[in-house]
């Protein structure tokens, strides 16, 4: 996997480069500001862009803006946003359009090395990965929505799904059988009114249901 990384803390930038290298991924460009991100990505055509949210000059949401600008030019460009804090508002802005190939994670998730690399890979392949913290916020907030009708277990399954886990992964995490996971998922789909015709997309659609509600 070829990666472009945009992170103003050199310490962290080097750390992530080292981490990616350890798993055989090549960092083709390192930037410390959001300026010139689009040009760098056009030039290197990476499989993944890792973007920090707070970047010079204002240290507010340059990363989010850069991601939106980047997707406007390259709609399918996989991007993982790393942030010191996650806010559902940013997630909604970010995933407002097409959520495939997007990730939004707390910075400290890089500490779980394998999971982080795994999340990057899934995003690079077009998956959507949301931080458990965002998902928790979304679940907390949408109580009055159709999601309200989900059982606690179904909600857990949906949360893990939103984090980009496969059925096998969900089964392992909840220590239940894969069959049980499938049963929960189909119940979630039917409660959220997602028809069976678009099997591939339904996982993403279910996740988006939270976001659309805001």
């Amino acid at each position, binding site marked *: 996997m070829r990666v472009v990384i945009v992170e*103003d*803390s050199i*310490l*962290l930038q080097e*750390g*992530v480069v*080292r*981490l990616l290298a*350890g798993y055989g991924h090549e960092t083709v460009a390192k930037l410390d500001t959001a300026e010139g991100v689009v040009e760098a990505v056009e030039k290197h055509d990476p499989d993944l862009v890792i973007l920090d949210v*707070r970047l010079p000059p204002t*240290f*507010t*949401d340059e990363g989010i803006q850069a991601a939106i600008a980047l997707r406007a030019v390259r709609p399918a460009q996989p991007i993982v946003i790393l942030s*010191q*804090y996650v*806010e*559902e*508002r*940013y997630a909604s802005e970010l995933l407002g359009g097409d959520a495939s190939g997007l990730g939004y994670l707390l*910075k*400290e998730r*890089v*500490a*779980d*090395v*394998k999971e982080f690399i795994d999340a990057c890979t899934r995003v690079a392949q077009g998956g959507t990965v949301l931080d458990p913290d965002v998902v928790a*916020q*979304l679940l*907390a*907030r949408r*109580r*009055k929505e159709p999601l309200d009708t989900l059982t606690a277990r179904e909600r857990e399954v949906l949360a893990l799904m939103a984090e980009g886990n496969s059925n096998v992964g969900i089964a392992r995490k909840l220590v239940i059988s894969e069959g049980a996971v499938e049963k929960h998922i189909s119940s979630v789909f039917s409660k959220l009114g997602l028809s069976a015709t678009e099997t591939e997309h339904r996982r993403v659609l279910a996740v988006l249901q939270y976001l659309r509600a*805001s």
Partner: protein
Amino acid sequence: MPALFRPLFQARTWKETLHLLIDLPLGIAWFTIIVTGIVVGAGLVPLMFIGLAVLFLTLQLVRVVSAVERARAKTLLGADIANPFLPLGELQGWWPRLKAVLGDAALWKGVVYCLVALPIGILTFTVAVTFWSVAFAGVTAPIWGVIEHWTGASDMNPWADFGILTGSFVVGIAFLIATPWVVHGFAAMDRGLIRGLLGADRNAQLKRRVAQLEVSKSASLDIAEAERTRIERDLHDGVQPRLVVAAMDLGLAREKAAGSDPEVVALIERAQDETKQAIAELRELVRGIHPAVLTDRGLDAALSSLAARCPVPVTVQVNLEQRPPTPVESAAYFIVAESLTNIAKHSDAKHARVNVNRDDGMLRVEVSDDGKGGARTEPGGGLSGLADRVRSLEGTFRVASPDGGPTTIMAELPCGS
């Protein structure tokens, strides 16, 4: 007898005399400046801007006049007179400044002073010169008589005109004794005039003080706010990346150590968990100091995020067309944050509601719940901290929480028009 002449040897007498003498040249200067300025300015009014600018500058000169006169009164009359003008420093733009200048009564009194300074100056100058002249001429009359007789400058004969010369001397002595008192009297009049027309009355002094306090208070609020933002940045951009890199290296170490000594693996895992916990706690701490989403996206987003974190379901309604000033925005945020924390901890509420709207230059924040009530504003408690914060912004803060509920917390914060 010597007591009668004592005032002649007091500095006060001569300083006051000097003051009375300067009255005339300064009176001419002030009168000329003001009359010329007003006449020229009024004449140029058809040219709108230039005319008004000349008038405005003329009025501004009154401040200079006032400063010079107050300094003169302090040096020569020993009168300490406070500056009567409202400070202009914090007003931005031409129009607010003009309004403040024209609305300042001290300024118009200053104009009156400039106009009366000339006749008063003529009077005091004449009196001072006349009285001292008569006094000195009278006292020294015998000497002049003798000199003139000897030099033949006139046909005066000191012996023959003894009566006239003696009379002049007596009159001179009388004036020498009386003049200091006359000078004192006119100086007192000058002092009264300057104090009355150029000094600050009690009301203006208080107004001035309030204006100063307002400026310094809003400056310190802004500084506190900026400081919080700076601390937040330092923690986010300085400390946190280090912790993240440490946690990541521990993660890498754990991968490397996998399969080796399980005790080592467990140690690394524990160190990594602690580091991750530290990062999470740091994030919460920073959110408590100054939530970044508030700066970036405003109250709606920040309050939604608070509501999402609250274990009690919360409905948030924010109706704001534009963002309030930063200190107001952050006070509103912390009012809601503290209230929701209390609701989650103590209220047993099933539902809470947050309403924020702006009305008549007031930001109204209302947090209500359907819990068991009984919330009290206790000294040192969270609610009293909120009340202090609201007071520092000159807002009002009310808690209605009868036993048995429901609880409503209301804050109104002035936020400009």
